[in-house]
């Protein structure tokens, strides 16, 4: 071998040319393989979400639809954060909050947080926002803060809320839209509303919004939670039809598809490229009742209606595994869940017939049912009517589109004995029970006062901040509601989300206000 067959490594060391070439090739392979694996391990900078509705507004005060919540969790952070499973309040922009007495709530803010326009989130900004939610005539959140008498700035980062009567729900309201902080400077510059020019302290800020098509967001600079969001860019693509949304996920056009239908569940689970996240939400199918009409005035008739329903069969027949049967409004895991209600029998057609006979209807009776006209609602109505017929309850469903059906049942006309509908989630059970059972509530069609036990439970839950005591008081309401037949919960719908297998870091939120700052897509 000649000297040119060797490569000099310096310090008198050398290797022959063939070995050098082999070493270099091996190094090249290793480097390129590691770069491929590095690329696989690296997060893509773009997260694409399939959303199900165009926003009505990106201003939390002006928005009138719960479908806007997905956009608020992208743009805004709220004073209080709600635990994903239990919905118990946790620190958010308010690093601590406590009731110093039953009508005084003090919050201490995280210091140094800035809005996306560079202005400070301080106690004055919080006061501005809360007073706006409470007082602005166009605000859809006024009733959330109706009991807040005053909002005072006690120091640069401390706010005191004085209530005119005890209301522990206020803390939970501050975990929703009412706690979303909007830049006062942006509001003033925009003439009091930021429907299309939102400025919050959330992980992303809005870049563009093409109506009915998509919203594009980019990471907020200087976000107060370090190293977040993991995805620098986020695109919310609006696909109203759940089948079209699923197809977009299958074809890789989106990384996540929110609120899929139970019909897609079998297809999702069979697809090895997709991951399914499915679990109870706070969306509950139920009957509203008008307890001031005819036979509906009798609690035995109302109880019979509930006992006539085989909820297991109803869910199997109509929801394809996308719901669970229930006789209450909160699923297991929620702090207000009542185990005793699930242990008691909910289906007893014999007992239903006996109650009807006691109430003076031994041969059954005819009722006026109301419902919605979409295909899935009609399917649910058919199953339920079949179950009612088996105990002698007869009738037919008169259907209409949602806005019309609600207007007729709850509005001036007060048409119908029962309305098959659904209750979207409320973070605090007291909010939900007040909405359905309170005598003055729009959704109490008959304007009938709830029974004493329920009224007592609602009042007691208002007077204490102790979570266990509140749970016990609200349990009384749930039990009284079933025994008296104030409404008929049927099934808790599952929140079904499809993800590409490349997505990591996402956790479902019971309230549906999913957070995306920990989510990344590997390339």
């Amino acid at each position, binding site marked *: 071998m000649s000297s040119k067959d060797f490569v000099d490594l310096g310090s008198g060391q050398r290797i022959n040319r063939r070995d050098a070439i082999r070493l270099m090739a091996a190094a090249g392979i290793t480097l390129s393989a590691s770069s491929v694996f590095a690329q696989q391990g690296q997060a893509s900078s773009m997260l694409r979400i399939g959303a199900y509705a165009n926003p009505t507004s990106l201003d939390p005060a002006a928005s*009138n639809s719960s479908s806007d919540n997905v956009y608020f969790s992208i743009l805004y952070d709220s004073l209080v954060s709600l635990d994903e499973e239990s919905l118990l309040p946790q620190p958010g922009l308010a690093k601590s909050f406590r009731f110093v007495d039953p009508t005084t709530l003090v919050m201490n803010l995280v210091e140094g947080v800035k809005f996306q326009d560079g202005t400070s989130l301080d106690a004055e900004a919080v006061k501005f926002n809360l007073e706006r939610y409470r007082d602005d005539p*166009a605000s*859809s*959140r006024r009733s959330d803060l109706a009991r807040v008498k005053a909002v005072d700035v006690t120091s640069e980062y401390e706010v005191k809320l004085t209530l005119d009567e005890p209301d522990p729900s206020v803390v939970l309201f501050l975990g929703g839209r009412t706690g979303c902080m909007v830049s006062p400077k942006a509001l003033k510059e925009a003439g009091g509303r930021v429907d299309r020019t939102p400025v919050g302290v959330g992980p992303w800020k809005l870049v563009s919004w093409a109506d009915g098509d998509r919203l594009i967001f980019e990471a907020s600079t200087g976000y107060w939670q370090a190293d977040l969001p993991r995805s620098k860019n986020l695109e919310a693509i609006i696909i109203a039809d759940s089948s079209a949304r699923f197809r977009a996920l299958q*074809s*890789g056009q989106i990384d996540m598809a929110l609120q899929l239908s139970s019909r897609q569940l079998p297809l999702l689970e069979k697809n090895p490229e997709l991951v399914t996240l499915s679990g109870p939400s706070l969306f509950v199918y139920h009957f509203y009742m008008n307890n001031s009409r005819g036979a509906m005035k009798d609690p035995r008739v109302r109880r019979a209606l509930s006992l006539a329903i085989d909820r297991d069969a109803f869910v199997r027949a109509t929801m394809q595994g996308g719901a669970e049967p229930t006789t209450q409004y909160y699923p297991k895991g929620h702090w207000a869940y009542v185990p005793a209600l699930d242990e008691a029998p909910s289906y007893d057609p014999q007992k239903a017939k006996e109650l009807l006979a006691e109430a003076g209807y031994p041969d059954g009776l005819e009722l006026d049912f109301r419902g919605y006209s979409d295909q899935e609602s009609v399917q649910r109505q058919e199953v339920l009517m079949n179950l009612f017929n088996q105990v002698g309850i007869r009738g037919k469903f008169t259907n209409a*589109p949602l806005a019309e059906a609600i*207007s007729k049942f709850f509005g001036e006309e007060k048409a119908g004995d029962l309305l098959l509908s659904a209750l979207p989630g409320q973070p605090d059970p007291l909010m939900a029970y007040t909405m359905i059972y309170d005598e003055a509530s729009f*959704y109490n069609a008959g304007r009938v006062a709830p029974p004493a036990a329920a009224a007592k439970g609602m009042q007691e839950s208002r007077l204490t901040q102790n979570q266990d005591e509140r749970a016990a008081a609200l349990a009384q309401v749930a039990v009284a509601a079933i025994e008296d037949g104030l409404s008929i919960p049927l099934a808790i719908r599952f929140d079904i989300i499809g993800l590409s297998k490349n997505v990591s870091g996402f956790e479902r939120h019971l309230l549906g206000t999913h957070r995306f700052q920990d989510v990344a897509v590997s390339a």
Partner: protein
Amino acid sequence: MAANKRLKLFWNRLLQAAPVIVLASLAIFFLMKLLPGDVAITLAGEDISEERLGEIRHMHGLDRPLLYQYASWAWAAMNGDLSKSLLTGQDVGVLIASVYPNTLFIAGYAVLLTILIGVPLGIAAAATAGSAIDRFVSVVSSAGVAVPNFWIGMLLVAAFALERPWFPATGFVSPFTDIRMAIVCATLPAIALSSTGIAEVARQLRTALVEILSTQYVRTLHAKGLSPQAILWKHGLRNTGVTLITIISLIINRTIAMTVVIEYVFAIPGLGSALINATMARDYNIVQGIMLVLVLTVIFINLLSDILCSMIDPRVN
């Protein structure tokens, strides 16, 4: 002289359009108001009470007399202001301007496919009347009319977007942003939309051509020794010009209407999906604005069709 007659035709049609627009807008307005359902309930969201509903109705002028509401809207529309969405507060004119081009692009693509495929099929069927080709075109025409185009759309997605990812399953790209991607995204929806039009054009053109080719003067042309191809192209097709333009103008109007369902299946942000959402939510201002634009579109297309027909066949004047 012919140009003067066409100008007179144009002004006549325009004058006839004015009462049509007024009547159509009145009909739309009152039909929407007759629909049960209270938009104030949608606007109130979760914060609902009788007091709040009253406030909302007053805020949006919904408690005013109906004729007053119509007159306000009509006056503003004549001045170019189509008002704002009741639900989102967005300017209706801006909304329409952002979504209508998408609908027109898809509809235009579908009409182009209709002409490029339907016309040759009709000619082939007429030229070979009674043959296997004619029968094949007849079967295709019947299927095209009978099969719902949204179902064809879903089959196309399954075959060419999911099984073989040649086209996107959903979505739309504006031609002003990226013309190549716009065409790719619009291809499956346009094919689905064009199915009915292709069937109709082929069938109607075939019938018109066969009728013309069986007339006495065509027999005379044959007797004089003119070739069948020359008879078909120079005499047959020219005489079907008015029929073809009329059919295509009807297909354009119908295609724009049919985009409603296709936009939903393919998640295309167009006029149709905006109209469906607004109707369900009782957003009167958007519905009225969109319907006015559609009425104006139909009038314009019919006017254009009349002018083209008069250019081809002076007898139309």
